[in-house]
């Protein structure tokens, strides 16, 4: 019997050891580093500074700026992805003859690497040769070409456009699966009771879609909040600090600034903020 009780642990051991070594270990390390003054090129001397890195962040305008940008980035980007994805899912749930083709093709942006998405949109938004400026001028929407990624007032909008493009298929596909799982009888019953289309949407579709929507929103929110590769490729956080979200700031601080301790503290704070959102969500959905 003893061997039987050990079996699941033996099966789990490789995955657990890998996670312990390459995830939990580094996380503990980051916590430890965040309490020290660490400079990459001075590995021998790492004085313990307590919470000084965290306190420094609270007095760092770049931290608050990055936090605010992160909030805007997450709320606007996830909101747009969700809105567009929901509309697409509702449309693709209707009957038309080329629906299978449309359903397959809509996922393309989701499959592309972030670097390629950054590349595609940097090219689309190019000042001289970009398609966006060209079409905008031809249609009379723009009077002169705009340097979308070089102007602080437009750069955040430009990267949000790119991440919306990348992420809306995720919502479309998951919400579509959710829509298909709603029993047809519910709609029939609602129609028998004389419910109109809007009524059906409010009282049948939305409640039926709720669990999928909540999961998809949470997953995407975490992903968008953590993602920095798209911004790194398109603007590198610039111009100035116009697109420097919190994870990107932590990354740049730790990497190019070689200020490991401070970068670690920023990464820990980002994680704590995300964790609190997830816990809040978990508690609310438990009710």
């Amino acid at each position, binding site marked *: 019997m003893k061997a039987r009780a050990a079996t699941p642990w033996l099966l789990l051991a490789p995955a*657990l050891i890998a*996670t312990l070594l390459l995830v939990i270990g580094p996380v503990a390390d980051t916590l430890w580093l965040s309490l020290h003054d660490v400079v990459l090129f001075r590995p021998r001397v790492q004085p313990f500074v307590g919470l000084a890195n965290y306190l420094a962040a609270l007095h760092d305008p770049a931290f608050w700026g990055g936090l605010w940008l992160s909030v805007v980035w997450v709320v606007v980007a996830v909101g747009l992805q969700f809105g567009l994805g929901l509309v697409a899912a509702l449309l693709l749930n209707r009957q038309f003859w080329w629906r299978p083709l449309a359903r397959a093709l809509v996922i393309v942006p989701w499959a592309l690497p972030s670097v390629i998405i950054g590349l595609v949109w940097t090219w689309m938004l190019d000042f001289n040769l970009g398609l966006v400026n060209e079409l905008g001028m031809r249609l009379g929407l723009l009077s002169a070409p705009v340097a979308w990624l070089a102007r602080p007032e437009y750069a955040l909008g430009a990267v949000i456009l790119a991440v919306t493009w990348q992420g809306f298929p995720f919502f479309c596909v998951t919400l579509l699966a959710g829509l298909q799982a709603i029993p047809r009888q519910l709609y029939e019953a609602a129609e028998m009771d004389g419910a109109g289309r809007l009524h059906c949407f409010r009282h049948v579709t939305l409640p039926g879609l709720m669990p999928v929507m909540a999961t998809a929103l949470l997953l995407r929110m975490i992903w968008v909040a953590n993602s920095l590769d798209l911004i790194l490729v398109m603007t590198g956080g610039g111009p100035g600090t116009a697109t420097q979200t919190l994870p990107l700031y932590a990354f740049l601080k*730790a990497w190019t600034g070689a200020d490991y301790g401070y970068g670690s503290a920023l990464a820990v704070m980002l994680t704590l903020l995300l964790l609190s959102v997830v816990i809040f969500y978990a508690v609310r959905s438990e009710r």
Partner: protein
Amino acid sequence: MKRLRLFLGTELPVLAILLFGLGPWVWMMLTSLRPSAELSQSPIRLIPGSLTLVNHITLLARTSFVENLRDSLIVACGAVVLGLALSLPAAYAFSRFRFPGRRVLRVQFLVVNMFPVVLLILPLFMLLRSFGLLDTYFALIMGHATFTLPFAIWLMTGYIDGLPVELDESAMVDGATQLQVLRLIVLPLAAPGAVAVGLYLFIASWNEYLFALMLAGRRVRTVTVALQMFIGENTIDWGLLTAGGTLVALPAVVLFLFAQKRLVGGLTGGAVKG
């Protein structure tokens, strides 16, 4: 009349969404097929004057791109093998055994899933450096396999949950051990699920950028890092760059179209049922 309503109310909006979704991607591919002289013309021509493969050929013949493709392929295949080797037994344990700590462990894997990459990457860099493993295939394969592990285990557990337990039980009655059940019954039946998880692992590794940049990048340089370095150069050769983008995106898109149904089923399975 009904046909017109269908067209205006459904087909036209779908077309608009597809135009938004596919337009930039198609534009990238079109750009890569045009000669450089045409690319620097302003105002730009929307309809290409002539099509050519010269950018693709230059990219493959004159730059290190073939080696980058090889590196990406090696890393992605390694991540698939290692990821499956780690996630299959773990998923089997989660699906078929009830043991103390099971719930905590499952939650643990989900929490691990949400750690920002920035939190992991710096100490991981130092760890690998101290072992002299930086800039090796091994480092990237380990990194990619581990950071995709939580989702791989989650997907795989879902698939194994869907297999009938009765088969396991009757094999056990016939005297098979747990490991024999895993090898002879569960693995063959879970093969389609394993293929989907493998495709996910491949795409995730193929598309990944930050690990590939930080943990490797010099001797082992994947395509995403190589492309990013092209962008960083002073004079951007958009013909070459878009040719690279087209070549890199193709396997991801094709594999994704294959895996789509299963991945989405696994992704939403829990939520739809729960």
